[in-house]
């Protein structure tokens, strides 16, 4: 579904060149749940940003089905994000002036074939918090709204950048459970990046990044349920 070939990313920081990615190649297959594992600075966020059309690679090729993303312009990338990708961020990034329902509607308003905001919120277990503003929700609840927002457009790919990074273990587990359920029920290709190795246990596949390169790739024969994970 998403195919990266020998992707490199070099940032020019003043006079210093930083090689965030050094020729990374990987594929995301339809419906699988992948965990990208790595320490901070390993290049995992850069990879996620490039896969999500937020950034472009310095070299290498990136394809979404048969669309080349590495040559896409700003407008085409916007289109790609709008139609095919759902994002979940570490810090939720909800619009504070909108209620949970409206935050989700923010996306369903512009999507081609969205589910109802209510349905999306129900899927993340927030049916009775729909009219609450972000400030009235706990961190875990806010992240679930963010997930509802990401899945409401029925994206082919769900990209999650440290979705549990700002949450305690119990709440984080709850959020991961939601992600796993979505992946299983809707068949959304899901990539979760994290530095927390425990989370890899729920994935179909684990990819470890270090210093801008893939150092390890491992398929889980036995996926654990998110609710069983503890850290």
């Amino acid at each position: 579904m998403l195919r990266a070939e020998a992707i490199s990313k070099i940032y020019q920081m003043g006079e210093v060149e930083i090689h965030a990615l050094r020729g990374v190649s990987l594929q995301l297959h339809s419906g699988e749940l992948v965990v990208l594992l790595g320490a901070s600075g390993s290049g995992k966020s850069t990879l996620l940003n490039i896969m999500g059309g937020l950034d472009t690679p310095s070299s290498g090729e990136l394809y979404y089905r048969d669309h080349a993303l590495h040559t896409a312009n700003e407008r085409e990338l916007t289109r790609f994000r709008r139609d095919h990708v759902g994002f979940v961020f570490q810090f939720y990034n909800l619009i504070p002036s909108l209620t949970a329902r409206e935050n989700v509607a923010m996306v369903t308003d512009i999507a081609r074939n969205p589910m109802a905001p209510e349905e999306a919120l129900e899927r993340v277990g927030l049916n009775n918090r729909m009219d609450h503003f972000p400030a009235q929700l706990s961190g875990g609840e806010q992240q679930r709204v963010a997930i509802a927002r990401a899945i409401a457009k029925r994206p082919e790919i769900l990209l999650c950048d440290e979705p549990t990074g700002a949450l305690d273990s119990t709440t984080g587990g709850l959020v991961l459970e939601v992600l796993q359920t979505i992946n299983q029920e809707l068949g959304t290709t899901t990539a979760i990046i994290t530095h927390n190795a425990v989370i890899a246990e729920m994935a179909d596949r684990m990819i470890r990044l270090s210093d801008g390169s893939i150092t390890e790739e491992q398929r889980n024969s036995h996926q654990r349920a998110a609710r069983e994970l503890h850290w």
Partner: protein
Amino acid sequence: MVSPHVTLLAKLLREVWHARAQLFAIAIVVSVGVMVLLIMTTARQSLVNAQQTFYDEHRFADVFVELTRAPQSLLTTVQELPGVAMAETRIRSAARIELDGFADPIQAQLVSLPEQQTQLLNTLHLRSGALPTNSRQVVVSEPFAQAHQLQLYDAITAILNGRRTELEIVGIAISPEFIYQIGPADIMPDYQRYGVFWLREDALAAALDMDGAFNSLLVKLEAQANRAHHTDKGTLQLRLDQLFERYGGRGSYTREEQISHRFLSEELKQLRTNSIFLPIVFLGTSAFLFNIFMQRQIHTQQQIIAIMKAFGYRPMVIFLHYLGYSSLVVLLGLVLGVILSRWLAATMVELYGTYFSFIELGVKLNWRSFAIAVVVTFAAGFIGTWRAIYQAVQVPPAQAMRPPSPANFQQSRINHFIAVMGFGQTWRIILRNLVRHPLRSTLSVLGIALAGGLLLFGSYQFQAISTMLDRNYRVEQQMDVIVHFTQVTDAHGLTSLAALSGVNYVEGMRSVPVRLHNGRQLYSTSITAFDSASQLRQLASVRSMPTTGLILTDHLADYLQLETGSNVTVEFIGERRLTRSVPLVATTNESIGVGAYMALGELNHILLESSVLSGAWLLIDDSHKEALYAELNKMPQVAGYSHIREAETKLRSYMDDTVLTAMSIIFVLAGSLTFAMVYNNARIALAERERELATLRVLGYSYGEVARLLFGELLLLVLIAIPLGWLCGFIFAAGMTELMSSELFRIPFVISRQLFGLSAFGVLTAALIAVIFMLRRLKHIDLVAALKSE
């Protein structure tokens, strides 16, 4: 080791440099307020100084007496009166001047210079040449000489008492008595057709049969008497009046009634009004806006403040640090303001110099105003900084350093209302944001409204003045030419004028000099009398001319504290001298000059005369103008005439030069302020919303959709602010109209729809430009960085 202060200073300077475009826009706001204050006070100060210097150095008299003829010996009597420091006699006379190559009649005021000793009072300031040494030499007033490009040793012809005299120009001078040099019946100077000429006393004495006699007296009061005002001066005036009554004295008058001084004082009074009112409005507005901007600007640094606090910096140090930030902006604003205002004030003063003849018009920055500007702007910066820092240091550093928790939106009636009104998400975000920060939204709206109000205010005078001139010259005074007779005449005078080629219509009129009294209030003017069925003269707001009683300009009636129906004491001071109590039957709201009017029959009845005229109004065929002038010049009964269109042109150019130049400056400043206001608003809104906007871009919102979110808010603010701005402008304009009313003119309060449109257009244009600037910035938001930051 580097001292923390050096580090902080480096941080400060780098941040200032980083935000330079924005801070510059804020500095413009500061400089506009400073400029308005400095321009107005500096211009006024330089005129006041020039006036004071001229008066002091050339001993401008305090009391004046005009009379028919009195013996020189009376001078000693005058000198001995208590309170008199100096007195000087002289001979004055009206005359006509002829110049080669200039067909129009030239009215002249001839003034004698003492033969033996030097001049004591109202002494001349020679620009070139010397004082006359014989009776054929003359000193010419500078504006007249300039208008005709006269040089020393040029010859002019004076016609005095029917006798032509060739005179040689030996000097060109100005006098404190004629700083504003206008003919007796004019309100605007006409340097080509009116001039002042100084001759030796013997020259005038011989021509006017005034040997050993005088007809004009100047008195300088002892400093004490002058200071003690009314009582001493009043007593002296009374004595002078008694003394000269049998010599045809027309009543003594003080500087306040002296024509040049009066016009200059009126002008200074207006400048003073301007220099108080405009700066209050502008400096007030700019201080207010600066305060808001500084507060919001610093607010965007909240995280850095938290870090500084976490490092252990005390709130006071943080405050001082940011005070440096706002002080740099104030400094930049002040420097800009001082440089530009010096230049603009000089331009304004130069224009005044063409209407008022001073020895020298130096432009010195008014340091007191500068001090006010410094205090006000620094205080605004101080308060804005303090409030922002106060808010920032309230937040525990740990909390502030974490990515911001969602802004505290709660379910409320208004939020519910926004939800059920069926707005799209974009508008919900916009509306909820505005509602969530009611103070900030209100201040923004108020700021834009003030700027829009200033635009309206800066433009209304253009239209008001043209309306005023149109009314005066198209409706109230419809004659083409005004003729003054040498002596009063009867209706036959009109017949000979009507017979002239090019004259289409003639109407007679009479003008008599009077003093109007009401209790202590006194005003010298003349009553203009004409037929109540006049075709050429309408009195504004008087439907039909009453056949009895007196009509006054409302401004004059107010000055004299008179109401319609009450009686006015009218002292006739012309040929026939008598005092009558006449009822005030109506007031006219004419906007130019002040006057007293009466039906011709009524005036002649009071003066116990039958149909007597002192002049006429003509409608003429413009193609015969030159021929008509030539014929009028030949008529012995015609003392002078003036073309009303020329007067109109003069007044229009005076208005353009003075009031409208000042207003143009104000208009441009108001425009800059509007732009700076709207731009800063958009810029700060962008900084505050960067993260939210980036999130939306990541979610797949296009550039245009995100721009709509950002600018929808601006548009909404602007749309609310525009009508409010109209209200502000309306109030400013009304205040200005009230304060600007003077004897010379009262600007009518007219604000048309176009002006409202202009103000709205200005604000919207400023918004559009700001949006264009912002779009470029919006395009360059780093999506990834914006998501991680804060």
